[in-house]
């Protein structure tokens, strides 16, 4: 029942904020995450990271003295986040194609 844990983990605003930050990057260190999240201190961020990792929502990787965190590419939250990001990115790709295929005179007409 990883999904049950996942949903409970997502029910906290700080943890959702952590996921939002991670969703926008490939990987993040605990220090970078603490800097990005202002509403709680570093210790609290660490314990939220532990909950997210237990729920299978994020992965942890050690490199030297740093721990790097990323959204788990196989977790249910990642499925929903990835789906939405693909959805929005695809709309922007289509908008770019439409805007750039418009004749130059039209583009500058406004």
């Amino acid at each position, binding site marked *: 029942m990883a999904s049950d844990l996942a949903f409970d983990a997502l029910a906290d605003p700080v943890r959702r904020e952590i996921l939002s930050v991670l969703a926008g990057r490939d990987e993040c260190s605990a220090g970078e995450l603490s800097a990005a999240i202002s509403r709680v201190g570093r210790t609290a961020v660490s314990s939220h990271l532990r909950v997210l990792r237990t729920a299978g929502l994020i992965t942890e990787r050690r490199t030297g003295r740093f721990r790097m965190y990323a959204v788990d590419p196989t977790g249910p939250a990642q499925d929903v986040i990835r789906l939405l990001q693909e959805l*929005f990115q695809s709309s922007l790709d289509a908008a770019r194609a439409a*805007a*750039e295929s418009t004749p130059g005179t039209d583009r500058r007409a406004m």
Partner: protein
Amino acid sequence: MGGLALHAQTSIEAPPRAVFALFGSASGAGWLFDATCDRVAVGAVVTLQAPLGGERITVLGRISALRPPGPARPGRIELRLDQPWRGRLRVLFEADGAGTRVRIVADLDDSGLTWLMRRRGHPVPERAHAGEHLVGLLTSKSGPGSVFAAASENLAAMAVDEVNADGGVRGRPLRLVVGDDDTDPATGVAEARRLVRAGCRTILATTTSATFARVSADLRRAGVLLVLTLMNEGGLGGELCMQLGERPEQQLRAAVTPLMRAAGGRRWFLAGNDYVWPLAVHAMARPVLADHRASIVGEGFAALGTRDFAPLIERITASGADVVLSSFVGADLVAFERQCHAMGVRERCRTLTLALDEPTRERIGDAASEGMWGVSGYFEQLDGAANAAFLRRYRDLYGRFAPPVSSIAEAAYEAVHLYAGAARRAGEDEPRAIARELRSSRARFPRGPVTVAGPETVRQELFVAEAVPGGFAVGRSG
């Protein structure tokens, strides 16, 4: 808001004003910029067809802020989304050299996240708290019915807040557990079963009769009280099954004479979706129209989900009808009526629609809904201090960009209050005891006095209303 915020961005080799102008212009600029709207203005309703993981999801919302890009400031379009989830979607257009950097910021709240996870097949637990009195709300957050159900969940939740502010049910707070039938009976059954597993012993349904009939057959022996809150054809009422809402016969008897007077003729064409409610409406129209010395010059049906009605509309224009009885619902009604307008039906006929409500009218649009009439127990424009206070509470809670209130949504609000009153009087949680009390209820609501007298009899005043730009002009029934 405390939800999840998602970001996406791109750089486009075109100036900000040109990129901004793509929004709503149907120029093949992707599902978001190809938003369908009659005008790009604050307050205008928008429909998005989002390709979500292999299926196309209809997202309903409204433009809540708009700023074209200027020489020194970025442009901005902000949408408030209502269905299938509530949230805010911002699109920012910033100058980037000679081009534009476009950024999307989408906020998703808990219920939106829950909806998406369920839609993707992930199990999501219902967080039950000891000491709560659970009530299921089966509604349509997706599929063609999401148009008419737009405000139903909001108003059911508002009623729950009011009940809880008034002490709940014998000291315990009510809590709503929401299911989405996707305007599909089989999904409705699966969701109703989920609500029962979550601990609901009563389900209030604000769905099509097609879903309600399947759910009531499926849960016949589950000991669960089912209440259909919106307009319907009746016929399923029993000890644990109630059908509130307007009945086709009363609606037709109230509206036939004013419609024929407005149309200046007595020839009717009956058109609608092919499921139980439209079929029942047409069956009832035959004797009622005969009583009024009116004739029926044609009849046609189309499956729920149809988007091209041209062959049916050609039959209507060829029939010489004076009045069309249009028994489509939700997004089908929107598509049918817009196409009727485009194909010249408005110049020939008036249209009576028993399911015409505010959210559907505004999506048909001011121009295309001219010449349409609705008939129901509630319209936003009703006079009276009770309705004014009710609308003020709704806007205070959900804001000026929330969907308009309709008879369907107000009925969901009433049903929660009627249920809570019955549960308090019953003095116990047994659904049969609550149902017994509910079958003889009486209360004053924003629509006026309502009397429940049996499993499928609701006495209320009906109003005939003509669609006008921005809403309805409401008259009294004859």
